[in-house]
């Protein structure tokens, strides 16, 4: 066996149990009475992917068996018939045989008969032979390499060590305030030599502690960052290791289709996070297969069209900033857009070309074969891209070829999350699925066929209360008729959810969390916030599914509308940066009294950190500060893509024209001089800017 073959087989052995587990789980759901289209789709998706993987690994019998599975459930799905018990038992039996087959020595592999034969056997020999224990299949595994889970766990902890340091730094800031207070106390004790002397001793002691802690924190941070980078890099692998089986698959498909194909690979030495590659592997496989099957024309057609007899299919990987771009291109006939649109109309579907192509209901294949044609391939691709928070672009030129372009983040370490409050608890939603955050008046809701809907960008979408979706029977006790609404979108499907409030947007790592008793369909994972609280990440597909299928939700008007609603329902956030606790306190109290949400930082460095972690609408900063002054902060903010647009007001005691000029040249929106500083002036400036 060649090295490559061995690697492919090894990869298959890891992947196969996942699909078998997935199918078994869905079979149990069928037994339990589930019969939705989604249930069948789930089995089909696993069977389809298993088939492709088996082909790539050169395991024809498994490939045939998976195709058999696909055919059986495809038929059941289109007839909308619940499979009989004997059929389900036969399928269980086949899954067991596949499991044994994969883990056995090539010489001792069992036959993989067709499901119909197994069904006959089952009816002859009741009861059905018990399934082998999972351990017998798994014990033959001799893999000793470091598991991905172990690596993830190390990475997670490295990330947490960095978070811990942020907490430490906050402690140091507090110590600095103490030091400053002692200094001020000493100055105020003018003339009282004894007390002043005692305070001075304390001040010196405190200063030493601050310096030591600061130095320790810097060292600690450096080491933690190195650790984090080292572990992150350990996760990176050359794409070749995961994607190298594709050429063989392309050639085989070409051979069975009677097509001449030249296959090119570019950039397979690119280093990418292994998890990203694993997730992309299946979509890439489908796209390549589609390129040969749908794209490349038979040789005679190509010659007639004045093209070379040999078609070209190319897989290329490229890094673009923090993204990995994977392109699958062919020089075939291009996408038959009209055909796709016609089919879409037949199925009552609408949307962009990408959406239609990735819809599970659509297929453009004229006949069902084992190569492609059930329209599942690209919907699998869509799911993978969604879960990686990436994008998929399709372009095509009639007669010249088509191109599929996946763009995904190089690492899956941190995800953008939107935190919302509901039922007195914070929940996170994956940022890529959040289309908009709105505040709407109750009267904007429309009722269509007895269902409440919301018009967003001209489109009517269903709306529901998040609290009802995640925990039924909690009526909303609304005070006001202004509703904070999150609009979620996945593919063409959109839905609006009423929440209790918006909290923040942040990048964080999601930890999977499937423990007994956990409703894993509705919870996608957990995140650990800086304050140590565990926060649940809600599953977007679940929320979309529930609002689409369940029409029993009603959003009721508030009982009593409060007479004087505050002007800002979601108050603007202002970050006050000043090294003097007095100024901070003063500004904070003025701004908070006027309904703003205020964050404070003691210097430019802390301000940047807070800007990274919190959404801020305006920064009011002192100029003279330790570590990083107001000019420095302004400069750094203007260099940053995201922070650039936040207006900055500089506030200082200097009445220096040069300084004012410098501040404004650097991009400050306003410049206030402390001597002229008064409440009215400050508030007027703030009102103009937010």
């Amino acid at each position: 066996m060649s090295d490559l073959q061995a690697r492919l087989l090894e990869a298959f052995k890891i992947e196969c149990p996942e699909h078998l587990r997935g199918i078994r789980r869905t079979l149990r759901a069928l037994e339990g009475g589930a019969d939705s289209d989604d249930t069948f789709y789930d089995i089909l998706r696993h069977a389809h992917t298993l088939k492709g993987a088996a082909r790539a690994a050169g395991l024809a019998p498994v490939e045939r068996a998976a195709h058999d599975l696909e055919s059986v459930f495809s038929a059941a799905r289109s007839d909308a018939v619940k499979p009989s018990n004997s059929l389900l038992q036969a399928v269980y039996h086949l899954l067991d045989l596949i499991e044994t087959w994969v883990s056995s020595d090539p010489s001792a592999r069992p036959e993989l008969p067709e499901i119909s034969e197994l069904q006959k056997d089952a009816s002859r020999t009741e009861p059905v032979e018990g399934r082998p224990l999972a351990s017998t299949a798994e014990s033959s595994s001799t893999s000793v390499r470091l598991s991905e889970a172990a690596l993830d766990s190390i990475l997670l902890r490295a990330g947490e060590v960095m978070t811990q340091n942020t907490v430490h730094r906050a402690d140091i800031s507090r110590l600095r305030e103490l030091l400053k207070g002692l200094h001020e106390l000493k100055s105020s004790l003018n003339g009282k030599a004894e007390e002043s002397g005692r305070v001075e001793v304390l001040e010196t002691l405190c200063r030493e502690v601050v310096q030591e802690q600061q130095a320790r924190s810097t060292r600690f941070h450096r080491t933690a960052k190195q650790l984090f980078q080292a572990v992150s890099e350990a996760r990176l692998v050359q794409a070749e290791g995961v994607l190298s089986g594709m050429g063989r698959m392309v050639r085989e498909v070409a051979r069975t289709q009677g097509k001449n194909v030249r296959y090119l690979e570019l950039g397979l030495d690119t280093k990418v996070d292994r998890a990203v590659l694993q997730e992309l592997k299946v979509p890439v496989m489908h796209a390549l297969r589609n390129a040969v099957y749908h794209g490349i024309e038979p040789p005679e057609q190509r010659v007639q069209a004045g093209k070379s007899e040999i078609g070209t299919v190319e897989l290329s990987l490229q890094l673009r900033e923090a993204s990995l771009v994977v392109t699958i291109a062919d020089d075939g006939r291009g996408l038959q857009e009209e055909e796709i649109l016609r089919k879409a109309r037949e199925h009552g579907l609408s949307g962009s070309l990408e959406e239609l192509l990735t819809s599970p209901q659509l297929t453009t294949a004229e006949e069902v074969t084992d190569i492609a044609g059930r329209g599942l391939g690209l919907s699998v691709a869509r799911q993978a891209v969604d879960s990686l928070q990436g994008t998929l672009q399709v372009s095509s030129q009639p007669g010249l070829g088509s191109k599929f372009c996946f763009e995904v983040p190089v690492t899956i370490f941190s995800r953008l999350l939107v935190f919302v409050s509901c039922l007195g608890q914070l929940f996170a939603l994956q940022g890529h699925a959040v289309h908009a955050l709105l505040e709407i008046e109750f009267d904007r809701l429309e009722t269509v066929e007895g269902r409440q809907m919301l018009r967003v960008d001209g489109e009517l979408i269903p709306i529901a209360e998040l609290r009802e979706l995640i925990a039924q029977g909690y009526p909303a006790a609304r005070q006001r008729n202004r509703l904070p609404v999150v609009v979620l979108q996945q593919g063409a499907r959109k839905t609006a959810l009423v929440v209790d409030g918006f909290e923040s947007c942040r990048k964080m790592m999601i930890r999977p969390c499937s423990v007994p008793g956990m409703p894993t369909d509705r919870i996608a994972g957990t995140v650990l916030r800086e304050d140590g609280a565990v926060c649940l990440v809600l599953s977007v597909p679940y929320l979309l599914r529930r609002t689409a299928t369940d029409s029993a939700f009603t959003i009721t008007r508030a009982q009593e509308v409060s007479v004087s609603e505050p002007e800002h329902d979601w108050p603007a956030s202002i970050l006050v940066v000043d090294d003097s606790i007095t100024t901070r306190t003063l500004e904070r109290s003025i701004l908070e009294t006027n309904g703003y949400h205020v964050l404070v930082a003691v210097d430019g460095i802390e301000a940047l950190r807070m800007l990274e972690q919190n959404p801020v609408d305006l920064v009011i900063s002192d100029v003279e500060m330790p570590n990083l002054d107001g000019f420095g902060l302004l400069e750094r903010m203007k260099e940053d893509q995201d922070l650039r647009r936040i207006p900055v007001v500089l506030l200082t005691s200097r009445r220096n024209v040069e300084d004012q000029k410098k501040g404004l040249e650097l991009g400050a929106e306003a410049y206030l001089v402390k001597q002229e500083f008064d409440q009215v002036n400050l508030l007027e400036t703030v009102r103009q800017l937010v």
Partner: protein
Amino acid sequence: MDELLRERARTLANRERQEVDTGTPYLVFLLASERYALPLAGLAGVVKIDRLTAVPGSAPELAGLLNVRGEVRPIYDLKRLLGRDGEEESWTNSLALLTTLSGLAIGLKVSEVEGLLKVSSRVDERATSSYSTGRTETGVTLLDIQLLERHPLFSEEAS
């Protein structure tokens, strides 16, 4: 003869004391007002339940998720696991016993920890529930982690 009997009584008494000393250490705790105990060897620690994140739609036995030294751990309500979920009590001040169940690091929510108890073999072995191994003379129900693993919540393959 007397001497012989005294000698024998001493030996017996010693053996008794030895048995007490070498008995298995258990941690005694309260669930509502009843006393239960788990073998100390199977426990990794006790933490105060502070800011438990409730999981909407979860099995009632899953009290919530807790950050235990940077790990997200599921906390199960031991009272409900034992099927004694009659009276409701506040969980704000309860404790979690840290342990491992079927390879999964979990916490078991209890009301209060009473202390250690060394249990010799002389207990009433008539099990009072499917998860207990017996009951001491002082009325403490002895539980067993391995038996808890057989609870339907843990023995069914998580789906």
